[in-house]
Structures are given as structure tokens and as C-alpha cells.
């Protein structure tokens, strides 16, 4: 097909595929989105009037034990980080036309992503049981909305990965359309780097 579509008529001016450029512009835009949420969290970091608080503290003689469980969250963060590795291995596999490798690494990435989500659900539930809700205090509001939107992004990512995995199992992904995997990977890595920032600024910095 000489004229497959308008986009394929001639090479792009910059040599970057249209869809890839779109994805990067989208990610640049997402920086502002997460930046807004993280900025709000930082603004209100020490503004909560009532407990529960993220860390141990004593206010007016009353001791509050902190909610954050750093070892647990470190493992979550590590899981998400490793999912980035498996994701890039999936891309590397299909670029070498290794379809079986693609399937394995995509499935691994999706599973790691789901593990992260399960961890987040567990964490949310724990916090909820400790009395932290959206409306309990500013910490609850900003924490749940920030990490919740991140979790929603991870969910979307898992959905994309599972769709790709099904396509890969049916042999519909080859080295020619490896761009699909690359784009999903870009999104996935972005979600991962956002978590790197959140993990440091929200959990580790007190």
C-alpha cells in the first residue's frame, strides 16, 4: 500500500514518529499534572490540624504514631522499579523479533504492576482503618488524591500491558509494529519515575 494513510505518506519532518511525539508531549503535559498534585502535598505537608499523621510525633503532650511503613513502601517502590526493567526487556525482545520473550516480559511487567496496585490497596486500607480518610485532615486529602491519581495511572498502564499481552499472544506484534510496545513502555516508565519522585518527597522526606 503506497498510500496507507496520510501519516505514512512521507517521512515526518523530524524523523520522529507522530505517535511517539504525541506520547512525549503527553508525558511533558503529565509532568505539570503530577507537579500540581505533588506541589499541593508539599504545601500542606505540615498543615494538618488533627491526626493521624504520616510520622511519629508528639503534639501538646499527646503522642501520635506515624502511619508510614517505610519498609513496606520501599518494597512497593522496588517492585515498580523492577517492572520498568521487565518492560524495557519486553521492548528489547520484540525489537530482536523475539515474540516469546515479549510475551513473558509483558506478563511479568503487568504482574509486577498489579502487585504494586495490590500493595497500594493494602496500604490505603491500613490507613483507612487507622482513621485516615479523604476528609479526616489535610494529610489524608493530599495523600490519597496524589497517590490515588498515581494508582489510577498504574491501573491504566496495567490495562494497556494486558491488552498488549493478548495481542502478543495472538502473534499480532512483530518487530515492525514494536512501536506499540515502545509507546506503552514510555507511559509505564513515566509512571515509574513519578513514583520515584513521590517515594522520595512524600515518604522519605519528613
Amino acid at each position: 500500500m503506497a498510500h496507507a494513510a496520510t501519516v505514512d505518506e512521507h517521512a515526518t519532518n523530524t524523523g520522529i514518529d507522530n505517535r511517539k511525539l504525541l506520547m512525549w508531549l503527553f508525558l511533558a503535559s503529565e509532568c505539570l499534572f503530577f507537579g500540581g498534585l505533588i506541589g499541593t502535598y508539599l504545601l500542606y505537608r505540615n498543615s494538618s490540624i488533627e491526626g493521624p499523621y504520616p510520622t511519629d510525633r508528639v503534639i501538646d503532650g499527646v503522642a501520635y504514631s506515624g502511619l508510614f511503613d517505610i519498609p513496606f513502601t520501599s518494597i512497593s517502590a522496588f517492585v515498580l522499579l523492577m517492572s520498568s526493567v521487565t518492560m524495557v526487556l519486553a521492548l528489547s525482545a520484540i525489537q530482536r523479533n523475539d515474540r516469546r520473550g515479549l510475551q513473558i516480559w509483558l506478563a511479568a511487567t503487568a504482574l509486577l504492576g498489579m502487585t504494586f496496585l495490590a500493595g497500594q490497596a493494602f496500604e490505603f486500607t491500613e490507613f483507612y482503618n487507622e482513621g485516615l480518610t479523604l476528609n479526616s485532615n489535610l494529610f489524608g486529602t493530599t495523600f490519597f488524591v496524589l497517590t490515588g491519581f498515581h494508582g489510577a495511572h498504574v491501573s491504566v498502564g496495567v490495562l494497556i500491558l494486558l491488552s498488549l499481552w493478548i495481542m502478543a499472544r495472538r502473534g499480532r506484534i512483530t518487530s515492525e509494529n514494536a512501536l506499540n510496545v515502545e509507546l506503552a513502555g514510555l507511559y509505564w516508565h513515566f509512571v515509574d519515575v513519578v513514583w520515584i519522585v513521590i517515594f522520595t518527597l512524600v515518604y522519605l522526606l519528613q
Partner: protein
Amino acid sequence: MLELLTVVLAVDGKAFFENPAYLLGIPLIAVGALGALLALTPIELKWPQPAPPEEEYEILDHAPGDHPDAAEYVKVGLILAVITAVEVAVYYVDALEGALLAILLILSAAKFVLVALWFMHLRFDNRLLSIAFSGGMLLVAALFVIVLSTLGASLV
């Protein structure tokens, strides 16, 4: 996953929304609903697509173009794992408390940069993409540093 769904579904009405897990639950429930819809519907949702090529395919040793090898990705992954371990370790060392902020920021910036340069291929791709992405990052950092300082929030 099941755990998550039970958490979300076990609570009723108002409490459902008080439980912030619904932020995760809604997309997942939607996915489940979609799956059920597709499973139960008699309509075949299938686009006319060319049949996948059946022929044998050859696995290459190296990725075409200037993409790094899988081994290199694994190496970067190991470095990332080590940095994360160091971060957590630093968090528990009391002696480093004064420098905690600086150390953590540097380490997480290092992770960020490693993922962006290698896994997201910014190192090997057109510079335009790096400009767009770092433009977004720098813009939002600058804006919120100003907002936070005008609102009197301590940055540290």
C-alpha cells in the same frame, strides 16, 4: 487484585466513597465490567484485520538501530535497585539525618535520570523529545517553588 476488589466492594454506599481505595477500584471495576460485557455479548467484536503472518521468524542477536542490548538494561536495573537500597538505608542511619534531604534528592534524581535516559531512550532519541520533557519538568518545578515560597510553605 482480589483483595482490592473485596476491599472496594465490601463497603456500601457512602462508605464506599469514604474509602479512598475507590480511586483504584473504579478503573478496575470498569475493566471487569468491560470484560464481562465482551464475554457475554453474542456480538463478535473483531475488526477485519490481516491474518498474522504464520511463517517462521528469526530472532536477531541485537536490536536494530542504536538501542542498547538487554544486558545493558539489566545492568541499569541493578544500579537502580542498589540506589533504592541505599536510599532506604540512609533513611535509617541517624548520623546522616542532617544531610538526609540532600542525599535523598540526589539519589532519586539519579534514578529518575537513569530511567529517562536508558529505559525511555532519551539518550538515543531525537533531542526534541528531551527538550519537551525536561521543559515540562523544569517548568512545573519552577512554578511550584515560587507558589510554595509565596504561600510561606517551607520547602525543606
